[in-house]
C-alpha cells in the first residue's frame, strides 16, 4: 500500500503532522497504536479528538490499534514499514511521532535508552546516575532524552542521517513534564 507520507504514531503530534501533510494535498496514512482517542464527540473534547475527526474528513487513512514493528532500508532511505496486522506501507516520506516512554516511543532499560521501531539514535547520558535529579520538582535530565536529529528534523540511524524520516513531538526530548 503506497502513500506519499506515512505517520508512525497517532497522538497529538502525529495527527498534526498528518494534517499539515494532507493539507498540502499529499496522501497520508497514520498508524496509531493505542492512545489515540476516538472522536465520538469532537466538539466537546480536546484537540486530539478534533484532529482525528478532521483527518478522516480530509481523506487520511487512519489505522487505529495497529503498530509499526520494523522497516526496510535502502541505504539511508526508508522504503517501507511493516505493521502488526500484516500491512506493508510504502511511502516517499515517513514521520516518526511515537512519543516518549509512556507510549513506548522510547524504551529504557537499566543501562540504555533505545527507539524500538526504526532503531533511531537516541541521545542520553551514559551514566545512569545522571538520568534523574533527586529533587522531584527540579528539571529532570531524563525529560531531555530524545532521538538525535539533523537541523531539519531527520533522524540518525547508526550515526548516519536518514534521507526521508523525520521525527516530531515528544520523541525529540525536552519539556518539563514531571513538574507539570
Amino acid at each position: 500500500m503506497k502513500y506519499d507520507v506515512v505517520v508512525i504514531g497517532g497522538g497529538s503530534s502525529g495527527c498534526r503532522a498528518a494534517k499539515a501533510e494532507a493539507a498540502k494535498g499529499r496522501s497520508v496514512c497514520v498508524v496509531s497504536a493505542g492512545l489515540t482517542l476516538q472522536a465520538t464527540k469532537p466538539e466537546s473534547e480536546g484537540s486530539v479528538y478534533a484532529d482525528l475527526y478532521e483527518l478522516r474528513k480530509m481523506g487520511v487513512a487512519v489505522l487505529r490499534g495497529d503498530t509499526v514493528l520494523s522497516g526496510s532500508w535502502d541505504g539511508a532511505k526508508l522504503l517501507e514499514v511493516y505493521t502488526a496486522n500484516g500491512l506493508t506501507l510504502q511511502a516517499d516520506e515517513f514521520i516518526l511521532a511515537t512519543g516518549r516512554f509512556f507510549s513506548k516511543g522510547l524504551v529504557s532499560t537499566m543501562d540504555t535508552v533505545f527507539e524500538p521501531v526504526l532503531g533511531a539514535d537516541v541521545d542520553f547520558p551514559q551514566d545512569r546516575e545522571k538520568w534523574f535529579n533527586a529533587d522531584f520538582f527540579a528539571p529532570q535530565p531524563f525529560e531531555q532524552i530524545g532521538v538525535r536529529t539533523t537541523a531539519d528534523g531527520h533522524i540518525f540511524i547508526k550515526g548516519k542521517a536518514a534521507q526521508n524520516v523525520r521525527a516530531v513531538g515528544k520523541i525529540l526530548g525536552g519539556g518539563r513534564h514531571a513538574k507539570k
Partner: protein
Amino acid sequence: MQKNNESFLNFEACLKCSICNTVCPMMEVNALYPGPKKSGPDQERYRLKDPAFYDYALKYCLNCKRCELACPSGVQVADLIQRAKLQYGSRSKHPVRDAILASTDFVGTMASPFAPIVNSVLPLKPVKAVLDGAFGIDSRRTFPKYSSEKFVTWFKRHAQKEQEKYSKFVSYFHGCYCNYNYPQLGKDFVKVVNAAGYGVHLLEKERCCGVALIANGMEKQARKQALINIESFGKAVEKGETILTSSSSCTFMMRNEYQEILDLPTEGYRDSLFLACKWLYEKIESGEVKLKFKPLKMKLAYHIACHMQKLGWQNHTIELLKMIPGVELVVLNQKCCGIAGTFGFKKENYEYSQAIGANLFADIKEVAPDAVVTECETCKWQIEMGAGVPVMNPLSVIAAALE
C-alpha cells in the same frame, strides 16, 4: 511487551490510566456498566480470589475491542471480560431466547424451507408481541429475512461445476448470514473471485464460527463447532488453498478469538485466512490480478465495523472501492453501531443499542449516501433500521462494477 512474568491476558500491565474507559461506547450511555478498566483488569484480581466478585454488569460489554485498541500497555481488556463472562457468568434469564439467537445454524436450517412463511409472519405485530413478551426479543427490532434457497444449495446446483475450469482455487467460508439470509452475497463473492481468475471451493465442513454462541455464554457448543471448522481449514491449507471470508466478525472470531477465548490452536491456518477484500487488493497490488471496472455512479459511505478495525484491513477495502470509476467514497468516522451481534435484539438492551448507534446514524444522515458499505452483517441490520439507508458488502459493490 515483556514476556517474562506475563499475567493472564496481560492484566497486570494495567496502569489504571483509564484511556479504555474514554473510548467505551457502552459507558457513554449506560451508567450501570462499570467500564472496561474495572470490568477487565481491576476485577480480574478479585475474581481470581473469589468468583463471587463476578459482576453481573459485565453482560453489557459489546466486545467491540475499542479498549484493546486504545490500551497503551497491551492489556487484552475485552478478552478478559469475555473469558470472565464464560467462566463465572450466571445463567441467562432468557435461556430459550439466547439459544434461538445464538444457534444460527439450527435456526437457519429450520427457517430456510419455510422462508416465505417465516418472512411474512415474523414482522407481524402479534408475532412480535409474543416474541417480545415470552422470549425478550425486542418488538421494535426489524428481523433479517430468510432465504428459501440456501447459498450452499445454489452453489452446488448452479456454480460448482463451472469452478473446475479454473486452475487455481480458494476455499470460501460463507458464514451463516450468507447461507441462510442473503445468498446474493455468496453469489457476488463467486463472481468476484472468478473474475480474478480463481475457482471457488466450499470447505469440507462448515459450521457457524461461534461468535454468537460465545456472546451468549454457550462455550461448549462454540468449541465443538470451532473444532469442526479448524479441521476443515487444515484440509484446505493442505491443498494449498487460501481460505476467504466475506464477514468481518466471523473472520475475527476464527483468526483471533478461537485462540484468545477458546484456547484452540490457530497456527495451522491463521496466515491463510483472510477477508476477500484484503486478498483481492493484494493480488491487484502485486500485479497478479487485473480487474476491469465499469463506472458506477454512486455515493458510498464506508463504515469500518468494530471487528474490522481490530483486524486492521479497512484500507484494503477503501483502496479497492476507490478503484471503481464514478464512485464517490466517504469514510465514516469509526463509531460503534450498537447492535453487537445478538446484543441489540434483546429487549433489555434495545435502548442502549439505539443510543450508541444514534451517533453513527446522525453521521450517515449528514453524508446522505446512496448506500453504506460495511463487511459486518449485524451492522447492516442496525444501520438499515436506524439510518434508513441500504447497506452493501464491499464485495457486492465490486461485483456490480465488474465488466
